[in-house]
């Protein structure tokens, strides 16, 4: 479902260009559970952002379901983001003024899903995330684990086929981190493609496929 060919990404920092991604080629098939690991600064987040259409590569090709996304205009890319991709951030990025329920609802509101359908989906989803009690709470009134579950709910509410999570447990203690991991894995078990960035070797080892990055390049996949 995803094919990257010779992807490059450079950042201009002062006079220099930092090569965050260097000739990255990768294929991800539907339903996969992939962990991306590597030292800090190796380009993991940069790769995830490009996969999630949050950023554009400097060179190379990114085919999503056979479509070269670099050739799409901004509106089309937005629609793809809405339709096909769910993104979970390390620092949640919830809207502080909205309740848990409203945060999860937001992608549907932006996509013009009619209110009646939205309410139905929200009820189901809150139940599934074990957040029904917390539906009317603001992010500031929630624990880190609950916030990340809200963020995951928001990422999957449009039923994307791919879920990208950049260190989703990075800000969590081990118990709530484990709960979040369980949730992500259960979603993957239901068929969603899961791509995960993590520093945690144990967590990475649970993925069916691991990729190691170093200095903007992919390294061999030890246990594939």
């Amino acid at each position: 479902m995803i094919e990257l060919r010779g992807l490059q990404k450079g950042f201009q920092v002062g006079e220099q260009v930092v090569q965050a991604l260097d000739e990255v080629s990768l294929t991800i098939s539907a339903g996969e559970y992939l962990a991306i690991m590597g030292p800090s600064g190796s380009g993991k987040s940069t790769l995830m952002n490009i996969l999630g259409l949050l950023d554009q590569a400097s060179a190379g090709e990114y085919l999503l379901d056979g479509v070269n996304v670099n050739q799409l205009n901004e509106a089309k890319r937005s629609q793809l983001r809405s339709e096909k991709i769910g993104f979970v951030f390390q620092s949640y990025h919830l809207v502080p003024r909205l309740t848990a329920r409203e945060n999860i609802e937001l992608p549907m509101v932006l996509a013009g899903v009619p209110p009646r359908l939205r309410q139905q989906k929200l009820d189901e989803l809150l139940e599934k995330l074990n957040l029904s009690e917390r539906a009317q709470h603001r992010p500031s009134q929630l624990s880190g684990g609950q916030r990340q579950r809200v963020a995951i709910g928001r990422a999957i509410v449009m039923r994307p086929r791919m879920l990208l999570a950049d260190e989703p447990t990075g800000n969590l203690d081990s118990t709530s981190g484990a709960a979040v991991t369980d949730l992500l894995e259960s979603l993957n078990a239901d068929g969603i493609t899961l791509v995960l960035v993590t520093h945690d070797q144990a967590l990475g080892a649970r993925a069916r496929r691991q990729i190691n990055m170093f200095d903007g390049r992919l390294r061999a996949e030890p246990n594939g």
Partner: protein
Amino acid sequence: MGDLERSLTASFMMAWADTFIFVSQVLMRQRFRTVVLWVAIAIGVIAVNLLTALGEGAKSYVLSEFNVLGRHTLITLPGKKETRGGMPPITGESPRALTLKDAQAVSRLSGVKTVAPLVLGNIEVSYAGKIRESLVMGSSRSFFALRHLVLARGQLLPERGRFKGEAVAVIGSRLRDELFAGKPALGEWLRLGDSRFRVIGVLKTSGTRFGFDMDEVVIIPVVSAQSLFNVDGLFRLFAEVRHFSQLDTVKQQMVELLKQRHEGEEDVTVISQDAMLSSLQKILDTLTYAVSGIAAVSMLVAGILIMNMMIITVSQRRKEIGLLKALGASSALVRRLFLAEAGLIAALAALSGWMLSHLVLLLANNYFSDIQFHSPWWAQAASIALALGLSLLFAWLPAQRASSLAPVQALQGKTAQAQR
């Protein structure tokens, strides 16, 4: 299955009702920010409306001062006006006097409804040991109607004594207060110089009119004034025409008539109020420019205030713009959300500012009876248009800038320069 369901439910265009809900949530749940913006915009509108009302009030005050005679009135003054366009001589002796006989002759012209002569002088007025230097006007009964002078009590100068001297006087309200100190003035004898006059009327308070403080005058029959000041000539002769359309004809007739009566010499000037006003045009123009200048400056200040507030509040929400895009909103949708927000708050704030300025003007107009403050319609319209226009523009600019970045950059609060 997911795709099928989606294609049936998502239009990929946010509904207007949801836009409205989203925007009201922003405004209602971030109250401090909303209040600050609201106040900034309202202050802008209020400043423009109040300042222009002040300027316009001053302007119409000046106009009303000169308007008091009415458009039907012709003013004759002794002496020939030499230069065109300048102000006619207001004081000063003229070579040949304009007399009461001239006034009588003018009053017999068919187009003339009434005439009122005017003799002016200053004299000591005293009553029961109290002495004041006061302006004395010698005229006739018709003078009161011409100058819109209303009696508080008593009666006007007698009709029968139109061109006859009688020792009666109508006095201004403040003069009455100062000389009589609460005691009844009617029927009392005033001393003007060496003569004695009986008070038959007291004027209502009317303030300064045409440069004279009408609350401190003494009005006596014209003939009495002539003998009091020992003059033959009139200071002015006012004539009211029957129909405004005849104004120019009557003016010609008067000039002809007075020329005949003065041995063929055209030695008087007859002017209409319109002519007076047109000679005031320069002053009025200056005042108009001043009002426009005040409006422009207050709009500039208000504009900068609104601009800064909008830029700051929208720029603070760069992260949210990045997030909305990450969640699938297009740049166009992000701009729409921010424009709707700015438009809503600007409309509400401008409206409340507009209403508040009207309230203030209403109170001011109640408090000051002499001068009326009204903000011109163009300033009101401009202040609201400015508030709306600037709010939209300066919400759009930062929203446009942030939404044109890659979502991740807006999300990280990066600036445009850090790109690539």
